[in-house]
C-alpha cells in the first residue's frame, strides 16, 4: 500500500521538478534535457497505471523522437547565441511578467479548480479492482476495427507534417 504512494510521490516529484526546470533553465539545451527527464518520469507513472504499451510509446515518441527533434532544432536555429542568453536589466513590470507570477496563479487556480471538481463530483474515488488488464492485442484489434478511419486520418496527418517540414526547411541544393 505505502509502496504505491512512495513510488508515485517520487515520480510526481521528479516530473514536477523537471517541468519547473524546463521553465527556469538558463540554457535552452538544458531545458530540452530537463524535458526529456520529465517525459521519462511520466512514462514511469504510466507504468504504475499498468499501461506498459503507452509507457513504451511515451518513451519512444516523446523522450526519443520529439526530444531529439527539438535538440536538432536548437542546434540549427541558434548556433550563435546558444552560449548564454543575455540577462539584460529588465523593468519591474517585465520582471513580474517574466517571473510568471500571473501564469503561476492561473496554473494554480486551474489545478485547484480541477481538483475541487473531482472532489465534489460523485465520481467513485476508489479504483475498480484490478479487472482483466488490457493486452496489446486488444488495443491493436480495436485500433484496426473501430478506429480504422481515425487511424488513416492520423497517417495522412503524419504524411502532411513530413512533407510540410521538408518543404519548409529544405535548402535549395543545386
Amino acid at each position: 500500500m505505502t509502496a504505491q504512494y512512495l513510488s508515485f510521490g517520487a515520480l510526481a516529484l521528479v516530473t514536477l521538478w523537471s517541468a519547473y526546470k524546463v521553465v527556469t533553465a538558463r540554457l535552452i539545451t538544458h531545458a530540452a534535457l530537463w524535458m526529456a527527464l520529465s517525459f521519462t518520469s511520466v512514462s514511469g507513472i504510466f507504468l504504475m497505471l499498468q499501461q506498459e504499451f503507452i509507457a513504451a510509446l511515451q518513451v519512444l515518441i516523446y523522450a526519443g523522437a520529439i526530444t531529439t527533434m527539438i535538440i536538432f532544432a536548437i542546434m540549427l536555429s541558434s548556433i550563435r547565441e546558444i552560449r548564454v542568453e543575455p540577462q539584460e536589466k529588465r523593468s519591474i513590470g517585465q520582471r513580474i511578467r517574466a517571473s510568471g507570477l500571473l501564469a503561476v496563479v492561473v496554473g494554480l487556480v486551474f489545478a485547484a479548480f480541477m481538483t475541487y471538481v473531482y472532489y465534489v463530483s460523485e465520481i467513485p474515488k476508489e479504483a475498480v479492482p484490478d479487472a482483466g488488464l488490457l493486452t496489446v492485442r486488444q488495443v491493436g484489434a480495436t485500433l484496426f476495427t473501430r478506429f480504422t478511419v481515425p487511424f488513416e486520418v492520423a497517417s495522412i496527418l503524419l504524411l502532411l507534417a513530413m512533407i510540410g517540414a521538408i518543404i519548409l526547411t529544405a535548402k535549395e541544393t543545386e
Partner: protein
Amino acid sequence: MQLPIYFPLGLGALLFGIGLWGALTRTNAVRILMFIELMLNGVNLNLMTFTRYYYPENATGPILTLFVMTVAAAEASIGLAIILQIVRNRGTVEVDKVDLLKG
C-alpha cells in the same frame, strides 16, 4: 490501485499548469514548443488515469493517447520547421522580436 484518483489527475493538472505558465512567460520559440509538449503530456496523463481507474478493459483510452501522441509529433515537427524558417529569415528566435505585422 489503492492510490486515490485525484493524485494522478492532480499531477496531470499541475503538469498542464506548468506548461501553461512556461508558454506564457518564456519568449524563445523552441522553448514554447517544449511547453506545448508538456501540456499534451498532462492531457495524456489525465486520459490514462481515467482509463485505468474506470474503464480498464476498454481500449479507447490507449488508442486516444496514441492519437494524441501522433498529433503531438506531427505538430512538433511542423512547429520546428516554421521556427527554422523564422530563424532563417528574421535571424532571431525570440518570439516578441518577430513582430512584422505589428501596427
